[in-house]
């Protein structure tokens, strides 16, 4: 069924009885060409692009819970292409282009809202870095506008420009960045993959990876064994455990990132605003909630919940940067599990096991990568060659020292990004 305004009109007039399931609930087949472990955003995206770009539809996505229940369901919905280093720049640039056509492509409105991402800077040194980053973005073909203090004030007058702790010197505006309705992204990709014949299998936890003489042969699941020619691991937040089933250790440590949403308020924030040094970022959803977050909780965790010091740190920063927020009430908070790598950049690569591939290490920024990650991983799974946008996301780059993309220049440290 194709979605459209006419369809809504027709159904609305006839009692809405004609709407069909957006995806099937198939039983797992004994064998697939490709098994994807993980039905989160990146896993569903991989399946979608395998079918759409490569015509590969004898594919199963195995999800231990419900579709879209990983980090695609627990983030702050920000989409941007404002990276500084080769490797990341072209990848996120590609991702943004995919985002721009995603709703039409999926025939599912993911509410991609290019409202602009504004990175504030609070010192001269930060201004220099913002200018450099803006130039990198422009060279890549993305958009960036360096705003001075008055330029920022014109578009977001409600900030505290004279806060003694974080005085606002200006900002780097990335007009094509914005937000998307995160659940809709997962559901639209699921519907698109299902419609092309991919089996999306929920409540199907993988318990083992079968390897015979260095080559993957399938997986063990709570619903029985499934044979596969190729297996892709796309399980941000559980990458270490699933990789360990194949005897692999990863350059990944899992951390918690909390986020918050306020009660519904009339539109007041029309951009995505971030303050790097303040550890604070915010946008307002189309429903009216102020969606905001800050830094990691800074310890290893799989608990999907944060702790009070982390929450208080975010609230403090919010009050410094945007004092009006003190009159909003927090409605809900959540925590995602972040695959932190030593350089803060992701991994899309083959593993030492033949036929086993991995897509992980998205740190705290996997949402915006959802289409491009699936696109690149599908390309790798289908062709055994990395996609041109993702050639540097090598699993072995820390051992070889070649191709490390450390955006923050902090050196190898799993928890400093």
């Amino acid at each position, binding site marked *: 069924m194709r979605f*459209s305004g006419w369809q809504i009109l027709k159904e609305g007039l006839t009692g809405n009885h004609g709407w069909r399931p957006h995806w099937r609930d198939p039983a797992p087949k004994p064998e697939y060409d490709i098994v994807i472990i993980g039905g989160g955003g990146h896993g569903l995206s991989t399946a979608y692009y395998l079918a759409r770009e490569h015509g590969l539809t004898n594919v199963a996505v195995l999800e231990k819970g419900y579709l879209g*229940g990983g980090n695609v369901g627990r983030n702050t919905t920000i989409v941007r292409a404002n990276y500084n280093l080769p490797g990341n720049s072209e990848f996120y640039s590609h991702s943004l282009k995919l985002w721009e056509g995603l709703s039409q492509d999926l025939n*599912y409105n993911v*509410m991609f809202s290019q409202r602009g991402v504004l990175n504030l800077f609070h010192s001269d040194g930060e201004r220099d870095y913002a200018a450099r980053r803006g130039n990198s973005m422009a060279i890549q073909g993305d958009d960036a506008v360096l705003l001075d203090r008055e330029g920022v004030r014109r578009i977001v007058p409600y900030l505290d420009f004279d806060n003694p702790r974080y005085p606002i010197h200006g900002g780097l505006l990335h007009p094509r960045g914005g937000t998307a309705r995160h659940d809709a992204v997962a559901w639209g990709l699921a519907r698109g993959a299902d419609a092309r014949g991919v089996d999306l299998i929920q409540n199907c936890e993988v318990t083992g990876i079968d390897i015979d003489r260095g080559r993957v042969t399938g997986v063990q699941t709570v619903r029985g064994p499934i044979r596969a020619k190729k297996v892709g691991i796309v399980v941000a937040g559980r990458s270490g455990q699933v990789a360990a089933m194949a005897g692999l250790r990863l350059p990944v440590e899992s951390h918690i990132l909390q986020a918050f949403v306020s009660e519904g*308020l009339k539109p007041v924030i029309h951009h995505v605003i971030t303050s790097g040094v303040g550890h604070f970022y915010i946008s307002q959803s*189309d429903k*009216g909630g102020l969606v905001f977050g800050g830094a990691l909780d800074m310890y290893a965790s799989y608990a999907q919940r944060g702790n009070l010091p982390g929450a208080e740190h975010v609230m403090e920063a919010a009050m410094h940067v945007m004092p009006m927020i*003190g*009159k909003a009430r927090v409605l809900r908070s959540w925590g995602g599990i972040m695959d932190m790598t030593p350089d803060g950049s992701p991994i899309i690569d083959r593993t030492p096991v033949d036929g086993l591939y991995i897509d992980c290490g998205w740190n705290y920024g996997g949402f915006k990568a959802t289409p491009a990650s699936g696109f690149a991983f599908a390309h790798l799974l289908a062709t055994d060659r990395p996609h041109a946008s993702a050639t540097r996301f090598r699993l072995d780059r820390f051992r070889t020292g070649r191709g490390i993309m450390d955006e923050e220049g902090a050196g190898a440290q799993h928890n400093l990004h």
Partner: protein
Amino acid sequence: MILAGKGRIDRSARLDFRFDGRALSGAPGDTLASALMANGVTLVGRSFKYHRPRGILTAGSEEPNALVTVGQGAHRAPNTRATVQELFDGLEAVSQNRWPSLRWDVLAVNDLAAPFFGAGFYYKTFMWPRRFWKAVYEPAIRRAAGLGALDGGHNPDRYERAFAFCDVLVIGGGPAGLMAALTAARGGADVILCDEAPEPGGRLRFETGEIDGMPGADWAAQVTAELRTMDNVRLMTRTAVTGAHDDGTYGALERVALHLRDPGAAPLECFWRIVARRAVLAAGALERPVAFAGNDRPGVMMAGALRAYVNHWGVAPGRRVAVFGNGDDVARTAHDLAAAGLEVVAAIDSRPDAARGGDWAHHPGSVVCGTAGGRDGLEAVTIRKPGGETIRLACDALAMTGGWNPSVHLACHLGGRPQWDAARAAFVPRPGMVPGMDAVGAAAGDFSTAACLAGGIAAGNAALSALGRAAQAIDAPAAEDAPYAIAPLWSVPGKGRAWLDFQNDVTVKDVLLAAQENYASVEHMKRYTTQGMATDQG
């Protein structure tokens, strides 16, 4: 309207306030909601999506409808629950989500287009032409979003954070919490008792039952007075425990000066980080609405809330009241209303064997299947009798009860899942969901007052023994011990829209549509319909 001579607050003193510019008055002890009711105001807000007229549904922090903006300029606080905001002289409140006025709201037209605005409709359209999303569709959607508005100016008010440490944290000061605190305190433990109301007592403040031969409210006041004399007890009123975190750390928000006209240098609110070796969850229970067509009309209220307005505040939403539900609370409510001098036009109980509770029209095995009235409130309800025939009954208000849901929220904060209790038709906490925390009383599914009192003593003693202190021999006071008699009633079939989530405007039809489209996982259902995602958590 005011029920002369009824209620427990003194209406001889007068506080002036304004609602949407209208000068009104109430009394010390009123909430904004009870004061509006005293003045005959029934229409207090507009709903989120369909801009339906909405009235007061509850008498507590769970209120989904009666959200208003209080204060002015950068001091103004949007989405304030009228049911929690205490009245003070000079209070200024305005209604939200309406233009140009609460009575004449242009976007009420959305309600007419409801068949096209079902769950997730926006995922299926607004995609062509592509540039219209940014230029036309999204701006229109955004303009309709939200309820209250921030001022945009810098918040000039003062806030505070603080730490506290104790042996036993008691969350909720109803009968269970009071007894738990008293027991633990008599055993020598350092106790903190938090209650979100201005005074402890919980439902005892609102009901007519007796404890040890005195009104429950008086008994609660007496225990509270004893706790106040004890050096090892810290009584924190107006304080809602908001979070259970790791290792016995709890977050709690105290409304320090939100009930004052001029807070001076005092903080409006204080956020407490409370570290407790043991905790007792005595947060009570929340009454469930019943989903029937038109159940969101002003004048339809929770039965327990209506009892609270009548018994505690001495006000009522109308003279002629019908009561509808699926348990013994129907008769209890009818009894209280009749005793306050209101006309009980019908007691409608879905159970065929429901006992006649008193001298009023009794409709066993019947349900309410529709409501009628204008934007200012209810004029009639339609009752479907066991044989299927329907009768229309004129009334000003309808009290509804679908049973009670234990307030298990804090018990779930560390990822634990509550368990379904079929006999109570509700989720109850499992032991150990939060290490060191025991649920007790209505929060554990024990709904009789006697069970709450006994459970409180047991929880206090359990905490003492966990702390290595001697248990206290305390006799449970004498109180009502009625069994919890209820037959599940989730929704009344029939035409028309029946609200499940008042604040997010989610109806039974939305949930059915989501299931039809295979959003069957409870998480998919929640996220697709937004059911249960507003402040009232559905």
